């Protein structure tokens, strides 16, 4: 019927094919610099870390080493166990990290959800509130740690002063020295709840308003609306935010390093690894700890991906 059509179509598709090919070639050209950088700053160092964890390398000369297989992880020698897996302090660090991550992320999620619900209602000065809660998030962790260390100072701190004045405590408390993880969790919750709140808020704002209108007209109680409409709708946004935060919390370093330096009661996996790498001159042992943390993070991520896929479907 249209004799010219097949020809022109063939022509067009041949031209667009070569266009497609050119596009793909330019895609790889655009990706190449980024891939090179990622290989150099991520894959290569990670490989090197794992490699070092199977050697006896020391900080003095990183080119001299011998393979020791799993000795840094676990070793049995003259009826004694050695290595990371038999190191009480390491398990303490693992425990602390897990406790810190679980409790602080749970609190941040609950408080963040609450603040997000607040921010999602219309009221005067909403912009100011949003700006105010962004401040803790934007501060460098070192600065927030120092600020809180000063506020929680046992002798001159404002927190002790305030709590004694309102009768909450009778004597000043040495917060950073004696309360262990509690103080660290408190500062972390203060600093990262805003991040949680904003991520959850972003999820809330995609919720169609007519759901609320319909529920309001039907006279459904707000609590019921929250559990039946809002929560299921923003569940995936919350899961994503929790995964992000957990990964962040599992690597906690700055806060503990600055707030409670050289304190074995609050040591985390990252602090432990860095101490052995650079302070105790046991680079290989520290590399083993670093590799172990990587494995923990991988396992957590895979579990979460499995679980959340299961949930989402």
């Amino acid at each position, binding site marked *: 019927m249209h004799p010219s059509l097949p020809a022109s179509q063939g022509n067009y598709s041949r031209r667009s094919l070569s266009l497609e090919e050119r*596009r*793909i070639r*330019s*895609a790889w050209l655009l*990706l190449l*610099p*980024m891939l090179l950088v*990622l290989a150099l*700053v*991520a894959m290569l*160092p*990670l490989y*090197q*870390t794992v490699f*070092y964890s199977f050697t006896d390398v020391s900080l003095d000369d*990183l080119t001299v080493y011998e393979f020791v297989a799993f000795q840094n992880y676990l070793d049995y020698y003259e009826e004694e166990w050695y290595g990371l897996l038999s190191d009480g302090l390491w398990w303490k660090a693992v425990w602390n990290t897990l406790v810190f991550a679980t409790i602080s992320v749970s609190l941040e999620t609950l408080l963040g959800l609450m603040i997000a619900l*607040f921010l999602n209602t219309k*009221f005067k*000065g909403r*912009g100011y509130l949003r*700006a*105010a*809660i*962004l*401040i*803790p998030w*934007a*501060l*460098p*962790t*070192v*600065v927030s740690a*120092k*600020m809180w260390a*000063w*506020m929680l100072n046992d*002798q*001159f701190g*404002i927190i002790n002063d305030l709590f004694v004045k309102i009768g909450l405590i009778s004597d000043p408390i040495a917060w950073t020295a004696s309360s262990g993880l509690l103080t660290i969790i408190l500062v972390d919750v*203060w600093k990262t709840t805003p*991040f949680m709140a*904003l*991520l959850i*808020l*972003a*999820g809330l704002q995609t919720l169609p308003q007519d759901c609320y209108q319909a529920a309001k007209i039907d006279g459904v109680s707000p609590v019921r609306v929250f559990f039946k409409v809002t929560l299921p709708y923003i569940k995936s946004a919350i899961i*994503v*935010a929790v995964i992000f935060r957990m*990964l962040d919390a*599992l690597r906690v370093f*700055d806060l503990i*390093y600055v707030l409670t330096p050289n304190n074995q009661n609050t040591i985390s*996996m*990252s602090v432990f690894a*860095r101490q052995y790498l650079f302070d105790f001159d046991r680079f290989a042992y520290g590399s083993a700890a*670093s590799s172990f*943390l*990587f494995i923990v*993070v991988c396992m957590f*991520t895979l579990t979460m991906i499995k679980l959340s896929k299961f949930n989402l479907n």
Partner: protein
Amino acid sequence: MTVREKILRVLFYATLGAIVVVSVFPFYYAIISSLKSGTDLFRVSYVPYPIDFSNYISVLNQGSFVRNVFNSLFVALLVVIISIGLAVGASYAIARIRFKGRGILMMLILSISMFPPIAVLPGMFQLITVLELSNSLISLLFSYMIFTIPFTVWVFNAFMREFPKELEHAALVDGASTATIIMRVFLPVLWPAVVSIGLLTFIAAWNEFLFALTFISSDPKRTAPVAIALLSGSTNHEIPWGNIMAASVIVTLPLVVLVLVFQRKIISGLAAGAIKG
């Protein structure tokens, strides 16, 4: 308005007030502490009186703090420029061009963003020694890419995917090169995203601690957060709180201004990274 509604309203605003106070007070307290000197510092008060700038004078004249701030600025700005430069092209390729391995590439980038920094630290330390970059700010430009590249690519990709095909189709038919399409078609529309991503990257680089602590060993080359962490008195028991608070305020004030001016941009960047991911 019923009594119940009134009570709810009061509760609502009381909670809001509490949230604002808890968020802002520590920073406010750092400011008033930094404005006290001598024994005033050790008397708790809620207003800055009398005001005294001696902590600022001392911290700015002491050691290399001014240089440390400029080091931070230098590193953070360059990291932003390099990361965005690499990420715009890469995320255009991922978001707009269909090729094999796109999904795997995204998974790779996402998994690199999950690397704990400590897991690459030993290997990175060795690499930096081999490249003879120890104690150089270049080592930071280099190592910060591990968290800035995945983040910038991921968020740019989220923004770029949203554009209608027609936008670049006309340019493609006209035979425009990929570079032209990115520069002339995408960037002009994308600049709000560039600002969001640039701000978030800047904040992340400005605040980084672990790499800066490890790779830099001399005081004049340190970045500001590390300098603050290492500020100490002549003895262990003599922590110079006044100086630490003044330095903290100096380092934080630019960030707080950025946050207050660009809060919408920052929030949209955060949201794009999380929701569309």
